[in-house]
């Protein structure tokens, strides 16, 4: 099964709709709750990052009986230093983003922790593509 979602630029109010929809789908498919949680936490963090640090983007989700693969792509400013960005607590989030409860610098570490495979391709000035895989077995 393939699903696509748009992440709207600057739209924090609706942020999480894709993750919410994926959560409902996985529930219907009878995926184990622990795996649903890992999946949606990772996707939600990636969704928020595309809004907080880029200009929105797209989400592509593929689900089969073994796994879910989620690709979150944006045409934002890119991540200059990925090692730094992966560190717990590191954040360049704006004051506005922090006021909304984000910007703890735990997003990428949360994504890493909750996925079985994580690939981040980022080019400064071009954009960032985060590919996350969670196995159900």
């Amino acid at each position, binding site marked *: 099964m393939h699903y696509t979602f748009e992440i709207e630029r600057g739209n924090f109010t609706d942020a*999480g709709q894709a993750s919410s929809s994926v959560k409902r789908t996985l529930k219907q498919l009878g995926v184990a709750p622990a795996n649903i949680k890992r999946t949606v936490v990772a996707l939600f963090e990636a969704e928020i990052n595309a809004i907080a640090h880029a200009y929105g983007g797209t989400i592509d989700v593929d689900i089969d009986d073994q796994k879910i693969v989620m690709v979150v792509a944006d045409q934002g400013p890119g991540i200059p230093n990925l090692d730094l960005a992966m560190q717990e607590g590191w954040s360049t989030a704006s004051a506005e983003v922090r006021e*909304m409860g*984000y910007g703890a610098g*735990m997003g990428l570490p949360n994504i890493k922790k909750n996925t079985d495979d994580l690939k981040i391709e980022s080019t400064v000035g071009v954009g960032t593509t985060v590919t996350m895989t969670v196995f159900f077995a």
Partner: protein
Amino acid sequence: MTIKEIARLVEGEIVGAPADDTYDVEKAFASDLMSDVLRFSMDETVLITGLCNNQTMRTSEMADLRVVVIGRDKQPDEDMLELAEDLDITLIKSKFSIFKISGILYEAGIKPLY
């Protein structure tokens, strides 16, 4: 501890989804940082927060939270209340500070997450 008992202790008002009397709350976690909330298992846990917006609801949804105490007399807007109902999350609005709510619940036997 039941959701209604928590509401009584923090002199709060229940809004959003109706309280599920069969849900037993054992632990609490207090934070205004949503990524922090997403780091832990929230089974039988109540979130205590001063963050009162749609993000609180979405984060609670992803974290599998069933009940959230909104402190500091923050008022959820219509949108947020609707979302809470849709997601089956019970909100307890309290006038008390986060510290006071935490202290009251701790004293009443609610355990910290860690």
